């Protein structure tokens, strides 16, 4: 702010401080960032670079405490669901339905893969800027931080904001064909990640008669559709009669999210520190 008014001595001190910031502080933050992000990347526990390592398989029980209409046991291996076991109690006749994944099928959770790839890109951006690299300008640091933060924000957003799908999209997603015995035509399932939770939604449908007097209005995309939502699929109109949502916390996703948040804050703090000096070097690139 007060560049014009700052005395020569003040300026010298400021310049010293800025130098220290570029030469010492920035590298400290970058190292810290790398450590955190590597830790986050490890959480995704994926085979790295095609070198097949044993990838941990984890079982998750999905259920709610209140109702026991839907229960699911899912096995997560990295970014893929390799086994699923869904128990469904039909509300009408209390009939119990049981479905599992076919042996040959896996369901990839794209959200996890995307988040991991974004983190790896962020790490890649940082690897070439180790202690030996000399930052000469503040804008250089800002540019790097912007690039890293973009990747981290994307990584986090992939986990915190699941895709909004329309019901026909869910119906045609291929997930319906994964099960044995085959899912009845009046049931739709969807898996996604929301924050640190692995979620399973089961939609029970009932077909609308072609001559139904009900005002047919297809619903748009949504993460979770409500009962009453309508859609058309293969010349048949359906209405959602029941929605069951069960979820389970995935501990390592929680860790990853915390790491993302912490590193984003680190980045922003570094940016803010650099920006403070920007106004002192108003008349030349700082």
């Amino acid at each position, binding site marked *: 702010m007060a560049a014009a008014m700052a005395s020569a001595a003040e300026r010298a001190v400021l310049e010293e401080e800025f130098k220290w910031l570029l030469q010492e502080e920035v590298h400290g933050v970058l190292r810290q960032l790398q450590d955190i992000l590597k830790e986050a990347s490890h959480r995704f526990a994926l085979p790295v670079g095609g070198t097949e390592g044993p990838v941990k398989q984890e079982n998750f029980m999905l259920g709610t405490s209140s109702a026991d209409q839907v229960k699911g046991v899912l096995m997560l291996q990295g970014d893929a669901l390799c086994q699923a076991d869904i128990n469904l109690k039909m509300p009408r006749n209390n009939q119990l339905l049981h479905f599992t994944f076919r042996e040959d099928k896996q369901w990839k959770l794209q959200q996890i893969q995307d988040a991991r790839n974004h983190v790896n890109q962020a790490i890649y951006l940082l690897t070439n800027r180790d202690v030996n690299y000399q930052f000469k300008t503040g804008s250089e640091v800002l540019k790097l931080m912007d690039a890293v*933060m973009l990747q981290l924000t994307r990584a986090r957003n992939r986990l915190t904001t699941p895709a909004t799908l329309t019901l026909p999209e869910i119906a045609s997603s291929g997930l319906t064909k994964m099960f044995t015995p085959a899912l009845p035509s009046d049931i739709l399932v969807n898996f996604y990640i929301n924050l640190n939770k692995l979620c399973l939604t089961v939609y029970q449908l009932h077909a609308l008669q072609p001559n139904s007097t009900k005002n047919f209005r297809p619903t748009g995309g949504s993460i979770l559709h409500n009962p009453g939502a309508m859609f058309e699929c293969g010349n048949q109109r359906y209405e959602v009669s029941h929605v069951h949502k069960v979820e389970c916390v995935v501990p390592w996703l929680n860790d990853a999210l915390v790491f993302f948040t912490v590193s984003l804050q680190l980045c922003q703090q570094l940016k803010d520190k650099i920006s403070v000096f920007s106004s002192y070097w108003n008349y030349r690139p700082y």
Partner: protein
Amino acid sequence: MAGNSLVLPIVLWGRKAPTHCISAILLMDDVSMIVTGCHDGQISLWDLSLNLEINPRALLFGHTASITCLSKASASSEKQYIVSASESGEMCLWDVNDGRCIEFTKLACTHTGIQFYQFTVGTQREGRLLCHGHYPEILVVDATSLEVLYSLVSKISPDWISSMSIIRSHRTQEDTVVAVSVTGILKVWIVTSEVSRMQDTEPVFEEESKPIYCQNCQSISFCAFTQRSLLVVCSKYWRVFDAGDYSLLCSVPSENGQTWTGGDFVSADKVIIWTEDGQSFIYKLPASCLPASDTFRSDVGKAVENLIPPLLFSVLDRADKQLLICPPITRFFYGRRECFHKLLIQGDSSGRLCIWNVPDTLELQDNTEGLQMTTSTSLQEAFCKLTPRPAGIIDQLSLIPNSNEPLKVTASVYIPAHGRLVCGREDGSIVIVPATQTAIVQLLQGEHMLRRGWPPHRNLRAHRNKVTCLLYPHQVSSRYDQRYLISGGVDFSVIIWDIFSGEMKHIFCVHGGEITQLLVPPENCSARVQHCICSVASDHSVGLLSLREKKCIMLASRHLFPIQVIKWRPSDDYLVVGCADGSVYVWQMDTGALDRCVMGITAVEILNACDEAVPAAVDSLSHSAVNLKQAMTRRSLAALKNVAHQKLQTLATNLLASEASDKGNLPKYSHNSLMVQAIKTNLTDPDIHVLFFDVEALIIQLLTEEASRPNTALISPENLQKASGSSDKGGSFLAGKRAAVLFQQVKETIKENIKEHLLDDEDEDEESMRQRREDSDPEYRSSKSKPLTLLEYNLTMDTAKLFMSCLHAWGLNEDLDDVCLDRLGMLKPHCSVSFGLLSRGGHMSLMLPGYNQSIGKPSYGSVEVGRKMSITEGLGRGTYGVSRAVTTQHLLSIISLANTLMSMTNATFIGDHMKKGPIRPPRPGTPDLSKMKAPPPASSNAAQGQIKQGKIKACEITDVTF
């Protein structure tokens, strides 16, 4: 009035070239043009001459985020289409001949690479774009509609594709897409025959999937010379593979910790590889990699890592070791233009392009020397070599004693009601100046050049450093006092000014950081908030500053991340703050309490809900391009849909039609003939000012003024008859039918306007007319309050004068030029004026200063250009010949304006205050002016006849080129 309005932008760039931190490069196949994309989302077009000299031509605006990739999008040599993609998932198809946006779309995912490919469908060749990015498929997109047709998917370990290459094999007659995923798995799809239309939506699965253990793959390229090998460049090594069975032929690690960022084949036996810091190396491939050699494939299966690196041939280093803020982008291209060119092109963060012409016969060189750079230029360099230097809007008022550079304008706001432009500068002063007059000074030659301190202006001083934002609240909502102007600075203060008296009314010091944005709350807020403005600062705080109470009524701080968006929920008394990290803070405006802070889906939902409630109050602070886009949409400038490229006739009829359909709305007509919009390509740049001339509005304003010129008592049906009669007479000058159509339309407008005016006058009595005159007259006002030292002037005529002078094709006809100068009072421009072109969806292209510097514009219409050059005899004054779309718009504007001016009684620009001296300017519309009117009507009519003839001639000349 959102219809097809004809709006022409003229841009004042200022001396500092816009920041252009290059993120993507493309060379057109005919080696006539380089296209670069930058981190701020603009695309620059650079003309390339035969001897490889570069001259920047235009800047394309429209993307809101960093450009990730560029690709050609047409194969035919007729069209020069390119496609650009941005970090935010936008895709845009441009005609690079005139900078028109042809199609645009937005997907949720980011593309990082696009390649053009032609499929054969029956007998037709159809253009397709193969895109990869932050998703596990390769999307096949139609190259004209930008619709996703189908995708190439992986069955085995699908992952993001990091790079891709299309292999055209003449041996097998099969074209394949070879891609490497981020996990280092090579994927192959066969794409030779287009899948029949029925199955278009079905995904295509990969033919082969092979792990090649390539970490951080940067590029993959196919050897076009031998068609037998593939080069894969990773960050720490590069490898050559057999294109037949993908077996490894050689692998070379990087030395000294260098990071490779890409490479390509220079010839059958040489590759060029470049590093992150901008160096390039040419290597000779070992014999085992050369299909022509006997030892080809002799090393297959032996050592995975060949430890002997092939011979280092030459080093191409950056010429200047200028500080870069991010790694430069390097690409290798070949193309044919008279001879075969192999060019290595590099673009860096300072907006500099360097070209190395890679010779075919590379001899072993002294490693220290390296290959010399052929050419290099940057935007700033192109700006600097121009004389006169590119003008900024208030350069003449911003000169400081011991510096060559004028003070930079850091914030600006245009007040259309007064025709004034308010500019905040880097020294903290704010200048209020009549916009047209200052633009005339900057663009045109004339007597005003001799006057110091012209045009009259007012200086407001209180900020101690750079002014960062300006707001004139009355313009947004009439509930604010029209005297108030608000400014914010890097000195953390927000100041209220009285623009009429020039006084500082109040200074707020509530923020702990530079003020970044000033906003106006929506209409339906509580009464208290309605008289506030909202200020955003770089310490991540938001304040509600009451202009009435002169105090801050709420300060929302402690946001962890920069504020990206402010939204309002007036019904709940909520202020919604969206931060850069995606978190949303909901503040209660009345109490200043933080209601909640959310993330993820809820945050998105809250923001969306605000949009539904108050669609007008959306204000994105993130990017200037967004702001520009929104500004333009709000003022409905951008709605111009492809008009430019249609034939003149259709355009004329369109204009007519829109005129006709809008007639009912004319009383509400609030368009301004001139809008001044300041844009920044980068937040740290000074303002660039774009003058948007709305031709329709200008004509209407001229006619309205014409109608009001005689005493109101004189306006009668007879007068109306006379007016249309005279225009009929004017019509006889015209030979062309088109012009007659236009003329008819102008006549219609006259009628309409006179009618409208009559209606207006019925409502207003003589007293209010006098009042109005008093308001706008400084002499009257001076007796009442401290005057605003700006002189009275005729805004509309000045605007018309500026516009006509810029549009006129100077140098086409000397006699005509003399008539224009002497009789019509038009002024010659200092140098070629930078025009722009608006196209669909708020996309815009602006010509850079000196766009016509390089001789013989290398374009497909070189014959055309040559012809035009001979006509203009190298004067190059006219904008004709720049591009068809621009020429069409200009001719249309000039014809319709000339017609309008002809039909007016006082049709010359002579007789304005410049002739009469500054002390007592005549007031147009007062009786004494009509007496003083200089040229006798007869001669002026003749002169108008001449200009009309000239215009027709000009348009005939240009018609030939259509």
